[in-house]
């Protein structure tokens, strides 16, 4: 089997995708501007000011992120320039954002020390979850830069997007509906729809702008979960500081904040937002490989529907689960999470396992085909090693024992480049790629170069 024919070397899809991505990004910025003005006019003074002053930070981060993602396209000439631009924009944005959020919002309710402690407490758990999520893709790990971009969007942009919508919905519902189950159901719809849409936009933008790094359902799950974890991080801090401020005068603010931390950063870390947004990612990931537009749209809408339904089910029905004040309360709280959110996480794991197997089989097929070309990028004896995560690890560890860390990392880079090549071949064979055939040859040459650097 020779190199597969260029499937779509002159695709006209890419500019179209960028146009959609630009339109979505513009929509987000406009929504944030409207949000800020509405918040300033209609909300309490402090959140209003936060929103207005934070707008600049959001715009800086949004454009900085876009430039950062573009910097990692395969255009080395522009990479350095874009990286500097993105770093400056994101750096200013993050500083402004932290200033605004910490000083005006969290410190307003609980003080800067409590806000800092809450943020620090959530950091190791969220970082751990991001490491686990990234490792889910055993065959072809997502680059850290994109995983972190996804998490940052979830934390900063998605949370900002929902503020105005949720405030307006909540205020309208509280003025119009009967307090109790009806109002609670309405608020559950609000959280499910608005929060999943705002998180899902980040996944969708990532897919539109960075399709080369968005291979399949597994990638979608990883990026979606990362967005969810970012959102969960900021939401956890917000809830912890708020609860602390409410209960501190009664003498158990720390305990109340600690319970929130456990519920959101331990018990619900993988169950809640991470699971819901991972479903959106799964839908987008499946759509990425489907042949026709109708199926693509159905898959994306399907992912959103599952995410919204899962989120709604938790918000609407968690209170119905009996939690008493006996010694069994801890078991009951865990059971509630398991029963209400467990099925969604289990369904997601099923999609993930199937996706990993599907991806693995196809990569193996492409590794074999590339080895058969005899071009030297992948040797026949390397195929079983590259096809198995454990064998790859074993090979890296052998290099580590023999020649130290440098050899370990060189082998690691070689393996990654070889898998990149197999992935490129897979997409080309399926006619779902629009990079020119030369890109594949460049990957092949890169593998051969790396092979020369790797010690025997």
């Amino acid at each position: 089997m020779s190199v597969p024919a260029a499937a779509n070397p002159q695709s006209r899809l890419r500019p179209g995708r960028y146009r959609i991505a630009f339109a979505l990004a513009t929509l987000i910025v406009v929504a944030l501007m409207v949000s800020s003005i509405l918040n300033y006019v209609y909300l309490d003074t402090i959140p209003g000011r936060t929103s207005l002053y934070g707008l600049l930070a959001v715009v800086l981060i949004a454009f900085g992120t876009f430039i950062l993602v573009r910097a990692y396209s395969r255009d080395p000439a522009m990479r350095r320039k874009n990286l500097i631009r993105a770093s400056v924009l994101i750096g200013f944005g993050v500083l402004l954002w932290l200033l605004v959020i910490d000083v005006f919002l969290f410190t307003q309710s609980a003080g800067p020390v409590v806000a800092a402690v809450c943020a620090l407490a959530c950091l190791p758990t969220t970082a751990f979850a991001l490491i686990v999520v990234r490792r889910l893709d055993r065959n072809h790990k997502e680059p850290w830069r994109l995983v972190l971009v996804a998490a940052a969007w979830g934390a900063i942009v998605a949370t900002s997007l929902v503020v105005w919508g949720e405030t307006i919905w909540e205020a309208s519902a509280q003025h119009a509906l009967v307090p109790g189950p009806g109002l609670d159901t309405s608020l559950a719809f609000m959280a499910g729809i608005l929060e999943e849409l705002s998180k899902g936009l980040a996944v969708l933008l990532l897919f539109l702008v960075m399709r080369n790094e968005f291979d399949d359902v597994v990638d979608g799950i990883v990026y979606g979960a990362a967005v969810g974890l970012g959102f969960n991080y900021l939401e956890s801090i917000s809830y912890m500081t708020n609860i602390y401020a409410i209960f501190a005068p009664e003498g158990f603010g720390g305990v109340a904040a600690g319970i929130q931390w456990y519920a959101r950063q331990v018990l619900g870390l993988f169950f809640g937002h991470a699971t819901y947004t991972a479903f959106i990612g799964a839908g987008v990931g499946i759509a990425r490989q489907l042949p026709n537009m109708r199926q693509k749209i159905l898959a994306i809408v399907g992912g959103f529907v599952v995410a919204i339904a899962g989120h709604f089910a938790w918000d609407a029905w968690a209170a119905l689960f009996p939690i008493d004040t006996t010694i069994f309360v801890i078991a009951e709280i865990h059971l509630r999470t398991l029963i209400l959110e467990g099925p969604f996480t289990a369904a997601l794991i099923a999609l993930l396992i199937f996706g990993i197997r599907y991806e693995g089989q196809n990569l193996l097929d492409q590794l074999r085909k590339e080895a058969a070309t005899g071009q030297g990028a992948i040797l026949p004896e390397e195929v079983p090693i590259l096809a198995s995560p454990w064998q790859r690890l074993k090979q890296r560890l052998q290099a580590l024992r023999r020649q130290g860390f440098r050899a370990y990392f060189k082998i690691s880079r070689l393996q990654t480049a070889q898998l990149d090549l197999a992935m490129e071949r897979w997409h080309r064979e399926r006619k779902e790629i629009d990079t020119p055939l030369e890109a594949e040859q460049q990957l092949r040459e890169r593998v051969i170069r790396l092979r020369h650097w790797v010690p025997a």
Partner: protein
Amino acid sequence: MGTTYDQLRVLYRTLLVFATVGVVILVIGIIQFAYFEPFGQTSGAKATIEGVYVYDSETGQIEGPDSSEFPRSVEFAAKVDWSSLPANITVDARWYDSFGTLRGQVGPGTPPELADKSIVPVLVPEGYHYVLPGRYTFVVERFNHDVPVEVLGRRFVRVDRS
């Protein structure tokens, strides 16, 4: 190719099955909402909430001017003019805190039955020193078949953290 495409179809169809379950969940949610918030429940009646005042739990009396903001160390109560409502409807009055938890209630009953219960205080949670800070909602509700279906009067009160 055929095999791999079939695998993708399995993934696609599995997602659609999950999405169908999701649609069912959302439809149940809509039914739940419609049950507790039935359409067309407007009687035209309006309850008069005279105001929200500082409340002395020892004497059971209100004092001071009508206010929408209180420090957390102060107890407060709403005063309702039950005579402003038709005598043949079932109503109650409730306080909810910012978590949506019931923090005080009078009724349900007909307005004449509740005539001597015009003051509806917010209760300090058991074991606590003060009411919790946040936004409190006071509502006068009309009942239909034991389910509150219409809000006849509403007030919002903010309790400061300090």
